[in-house]
């Protein structure tokens, strides 16, 4: 690569040709402020529309200021990043942006975590010299995501995630000039679009234009109601990220403190979604082995590969975009929904409560889980199996609101029986984890031999699409893994074309899996944070006394007492689901219009 020399703020730096001024400056630890720019390093996601103009710099010999995120360095370039001209321009740009922004900072959901707010502070904005028309839009309430486009600054990061990373294609910039806004086609509500509620748009939105629908008040009301027994479940990825909201280093495990906090919030039973993850493995594993057995016996009609179905964003994705392939995913419900179904039946009977007097709350790293628990098939007589799903961020807010000093909490253990889990359950929180958990159990059940080494390192990592072959006593089980819906689409297209050689595929909608979920503490594009969370998950796994789902004593008891066999009648009724064709359909209309 050709090297060039650039002078930034009177300091010389050597960079490769094609490096932007912004990147070159960062090499010198000169952090030029940015707003619309986004770089999710290892995920190969870079967004530099050069739209907001906050990152402008002065380039010697150039008439106008240059957006540093979208301007390449050239040899001998001299750049000033904080001249008076630059500082004034940034202030003007910021004031213009703020002149079309609601002043709701005191009550805004994003206050304190808003990139626009931090930038206004950073740039020392004390007065807004511009006044004019403000753009207003109808707020869009969906089951999971709230769109308040009055707060949109047109950075278009959401569009990047929705179209290029996730290939969901719901959001697009529409209209032009002052009217320009990001919206679904025909300005429909998200609820009437093909939105999967993966929440990656929410995760990257710099302001509160896109936020999760907040259910903390409903949960507080349930907790205050003496007639209700409130049960909480916590997803695997939450414990690896919640600490960040309390100033802890990324990758700090806070399982014990989280349990203590939930108990202080007066949940009646503090349980673990990891328990239900183990249960998922029992069902999904049995399904994989069942289909594989038929395939090996020569059954040509059996559908392979088996796809995991834990992720509601992914489920929506194939219902919308690959409805013709909907008989391939496992019919196993997600751990959240298995938990709800078992809590309101088996556990309800144990504590002699009617399901109507029980409230099941889930703490999820996810936005789509809010939508998933509203799906009609997950309710009995109108009573949902899971009543409310809170994101990791919402839980952190709730803990702060209840003035619980999180950092000083003692470590406490989950309640039994639905708090007991294995290492296999906890790795559900990262890409590669579900299939590793399934492999651990499936191997022992298939080969009837004990597994010496439970760590399947070949299934781990951060690449978007991975593949590995696991030796099942002479039979090479081919496994595929994809995270991020754009990567999932590639595998799905191969399957549709009959070119896939995998026996089983794990798919998670969010980059990194649940650790990078739309409901997690904002990582602001720093993929080191995701890696730290992933390490934490594997650390939790290796510290567990039991690491295979089928050895979980509470799971064994659940089958003995209530469910019978995996894939049995009762299990089918409570733990499995069906999928719907939600693809776009072109209907030929008789010449109605002409008759009228």
């Amino acid at each position, binding site marked *: 690569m050709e090297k060039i020399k650039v002078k930034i703020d009177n300091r010389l730096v050597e960079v490769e040709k094609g490096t932007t001024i912004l990147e070159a400056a960062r090499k010198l630890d000169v952090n030029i402020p940015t707003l619309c720019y986004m770089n999710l390093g290892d995920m190969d996601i870079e967004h530099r529309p050069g739209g907001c103009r906050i990152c402008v710099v002065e380039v010697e010999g150039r008439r106008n200021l240059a957006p540093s995120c979208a301007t390449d360095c050239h040899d001998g370039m001299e750049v000033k990043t904080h001249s008076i001209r630059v500082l004034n321009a940034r202030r003007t740009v910021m004031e213009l942006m703020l002149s079309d922004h609601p002043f709701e900072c005191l009550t805004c959901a994003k206050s304190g975590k808003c990139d626009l707010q931090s930038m206004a502070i950073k740039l020392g904005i004390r007065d807004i010299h511009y006044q004019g028309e403000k753009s207003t839009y109808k707020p869009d309430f969906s089951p999971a995501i709230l769109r308040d486009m009055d707060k949109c600054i047109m950075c278009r990061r959401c569009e990047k995630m929705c179209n290029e990373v996730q290939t969901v294609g719901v959001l697009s910039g*529409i209209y032009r000039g002052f009217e320009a806004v990001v919206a679904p*086609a025909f300005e429909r509500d998200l609820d009437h679009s093909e939105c999967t509620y993966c929440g990656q748009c929410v995760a990257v939105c710099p302001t509160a234009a896109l936020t999760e629908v907040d259910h903390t008040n409903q949960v507080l009301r349930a907790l205050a109601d003496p007639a209700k027994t409130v049960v909480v479940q916590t997803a695997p990825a939450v414990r690896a990220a919640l600490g960040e909201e309390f100033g802890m280093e990324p990758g700090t495990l806070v399982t014990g403190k989280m349990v203590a906090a939930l108990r202080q919030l007066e949940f009646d039973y503090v349980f673990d979604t990891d328990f239900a993850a183990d249960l998922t493995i029992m069902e999904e594993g049995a399904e994989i082995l069942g289909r594989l057995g038929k395939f090996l016996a020569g059954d040509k009609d059996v559908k392979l590969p088996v796809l995991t179905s834990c992720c509601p964003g992914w489920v929506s994705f194939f219902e919308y975009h690959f409805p013709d392939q909907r008989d391939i995913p496992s019919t196993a419900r997600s751990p959240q929904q298995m938990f709800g179904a078992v809590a309101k039946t088996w556990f309800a009977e144990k504590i002699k409560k009617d399901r109507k007097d029980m409230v099941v709350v889930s703490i999820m790293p996810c936005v789509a889980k809010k939508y998933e628990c509203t799906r009609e098939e997950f309710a009995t007589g109108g009573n949902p199996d899971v009543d409310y799903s809170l994101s990791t961020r919402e839980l952190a807010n709730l803990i702060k609101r209840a003035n619980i000093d999180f950092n000083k909490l003692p470590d406490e253990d989950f309640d039994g029986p639905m708090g007991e889990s294995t290492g296999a359950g906890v790795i559900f929180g990262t890409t590669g984890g579900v299939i590793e958990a399934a492999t651990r159990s499936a191997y022992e059940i298939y080969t009837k031999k004990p597994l010496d080494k439970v760590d399947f390192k070949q299934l781990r990592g951060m690449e978007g699409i991975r593949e590995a072959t696991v030796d099942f006593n002479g039979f090479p089980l081919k496994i595929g893994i994809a995270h991020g819906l754009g990567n999932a689409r590639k595998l799905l297209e191969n399957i549709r074309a009959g070119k896939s050689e995998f026996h089983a595929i794990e798919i998670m909608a969010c980059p990194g899996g649940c650790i990078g979920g739309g409901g997690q503490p904002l990582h602001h594009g720093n993929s080191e944070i995701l890696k730290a969370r992933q390490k934490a998950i594997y650390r939790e796994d290796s510290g567990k006394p039991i690491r295979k789902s089928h050895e979980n004593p509470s799971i064994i008891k659940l089958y003995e007492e209530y469910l019978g066999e995996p894939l049995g009648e009762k299990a089918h009724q409570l733990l499995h689901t069906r999928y719907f064709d939600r693809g776009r*359909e072109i209907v030929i209309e008789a010449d109605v219009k002409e008759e009228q």
Partner: protein
Amino acid sequence: MSAIKIKLRENDLQQLKEVCSSFNNEAGELINVLHKAQSIFGYLPAEVQEVIAKELNVSVAKVYGVVTFYSFFTMVPRGRHPISICTGTACYVRGAEKVLDEFKRILKVPVGEATPDGKFSITGLRCVGACGLAPVVLVGDKTYGRVAPDGVKEILKEYEDK
């Protein structure tokens, strides 16, 4: 939530598919395809955009983004005789607004819409490059120069039987 149904007449669907395939169903030809589709249907209703999106394998949101970005594209049906009144600077100072108001008054439709019988529609226009004829009115392809409000009736009369 549930599947989105796109209703189209068989003939229209065929025509649209032909337009798309004449551009090899290439996503990069989106603007050309929209252009052609609008010349056939007179406007670009949601159904047409849905089909184009499907044929070119781009998201409907993207198609809608392009349609709303360019003022040439319209989602509102135009009349058989679309009337465009220039409100560019030259026409404006010579009374284009009064001419526009007169069209609105007589046809009883706002700018951007068509009369219920589908005969006329009114749109504003910014400069056709004939400032010497200001104010300028276009009906279909025909140009009328130096139009005064009291001349509006006469123009419309020309289209009485058309």
